């Protein structure tokens, strides 16, 4: 599994009009790439285009991997709504993509991955019997079971309480290491904690944002993280990315 870099460029149009006028960014191979921006700016549409999922948005431009192979078949995705089957237990939920493809499910491997995300005792539980954090862990285990080089995360931790969110971020950072990860979020703290590279996405484009020198996952209470967060908030709120760039 070689994680590719992904080049994205062009303009994004929504059903009601233009979303992003022009952008040109390269998502680095094997690293955490974070797209930060307010809701409704078109981040999810970009992610869906990357995954080859249907979306009302239209891209005038190009999405390509550096190895020129198609991206969509190499993608696993984790979203805010946990995409779990309410009638299936944790193991069945982890193996469902394989079964949907007509492949033989490997329940032992699924159980091992669930144990790795801390759900050794919850293998036979259904989503309704799990907490929000545990459900996201099942989704993470499913993403790992898929074992794809590109992982797209659509605000996967935003519905979690702060402590659970921090734990999930650590877990995801550890387990998704070496893959090309694209995380979209509206939370500057999350971006600063996890990103190797980050961009602020707005109507005008995608502007790279400066990050602390320390490697992710960063401590949220480290002075350089806090300073960077203040800087990011200022850039998101006070200055437009076009001016920043």
């Amino acid at each position, binding site marked *: 599994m070689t994680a590719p870099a992904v080049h994205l460029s062009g303009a994004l149009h929504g059903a009601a009009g233009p979303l992003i006028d022009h952008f040109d960014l390269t998502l680095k191979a094997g690293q955490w790439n974070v797209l930060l921006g307010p809701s409704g700016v078109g981040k999810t549409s970009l992610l869906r285009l990357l995954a080859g999922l*249907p979306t009302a948005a239209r891209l005038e431009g190009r999405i390509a991997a550096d190895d020129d192979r198609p991206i969509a078949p190499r993608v696993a995705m984790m979203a805010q709504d946990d995409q779990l089957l309410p009638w299936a237990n944790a193991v069945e939920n982890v193996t469902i993509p394989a079964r949907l*493809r007509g492949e033989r499910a490997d329940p032992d491997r699924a159980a091992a991955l669930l144990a790795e995300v801390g759900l050794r005792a919850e293998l036979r539980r259904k989503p309704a019997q799990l907490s929000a954090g545990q459900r996201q862990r099942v989704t993470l285990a499913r993403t790992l079971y898929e074992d794809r080089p590109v992982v797209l995360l659509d605000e996967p931790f935003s519905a979690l309480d702060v402590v659970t969110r921090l734990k999930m971020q650590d877990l995801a950072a550890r387990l998704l290491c070496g893959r090309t990860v694209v995380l979209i979020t509206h939370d500057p703290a999350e971006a600063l904690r996890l990103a190797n590279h980050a961009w602020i996405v707005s109507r005008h484009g995608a502007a790279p944002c400066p990050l602390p020198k320390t490697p992710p996952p960063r401590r949220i209470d480290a002075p350089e993280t806090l300073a960077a967060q203040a800087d990011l908030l200022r850039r998101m709120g006070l200055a437009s990315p076009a001016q920043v760039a």
Partner: protein
Amino acid sequence: MVSTLHKLWRGMVCFALAVAIWQLVVTLSGVPRFILPGPWLVLQALGGNAALLWQNALWSAGNLALGLGLGIFLGIETALLLTLSRRARWLLRPMLVVAQAVPVFALAPVITLWLGYGMPSKIVTIALVTYFPIASALFDRLMALPPGLRDLAHLSGANRWRETLLLRLPHAVPGLISGLRLAVVYGPLAVLIGEWVGSSRGLGHLMLMANGRGQTALMFAALIVLAALSLLLWSAVEALARWTARRF
């Protein structure tokens, strides 16, 4: 356990109250017994005609079981076909909508004309009446897969068959239950109408005969047996609904 006992107790109280009101109406109004027989007379008719009622109930229940079975089978088949095939949807969906607007009960005389007085005409009437609610409720739910699960199918590279079998069908179980709830209400009605239109056996036929001969108590007894049959079916669907609610 306590709640079961409580439910049983409540049911008995309601039943006793209904019988008391019935008796009160009969006593106070002084209506002749061939217009409205009292509960005791009906109970006597039930006991005295037990064999007759049993034979006819068996016949009606047999028709009902076969008709319901056929209706459920065809309803599920149709809903699945419509889900799996865009062409079938294009062709059959408008037909299904229009067919629902036709009062199927009104077709009973035509069906009897075509299929005769025997079992087939009853089975077809019941199947027709139960088919539409099942096909429609199941199909609506089969098509209403949540966006997250639709994305999951897309990202996993599922074909339409596997998507339907592994995601849409389990998701649609509550729709099937809604359809079944309607079907078990319409089913006994269809039996009755089918037998009224033309039959030489069954509870509907027995009611018609009893009515003609002024045996009102026997008519009521037949009605009670039919109500018991409906209640049995309804309980079965409720039990199935509880089981599926735990599972799906």
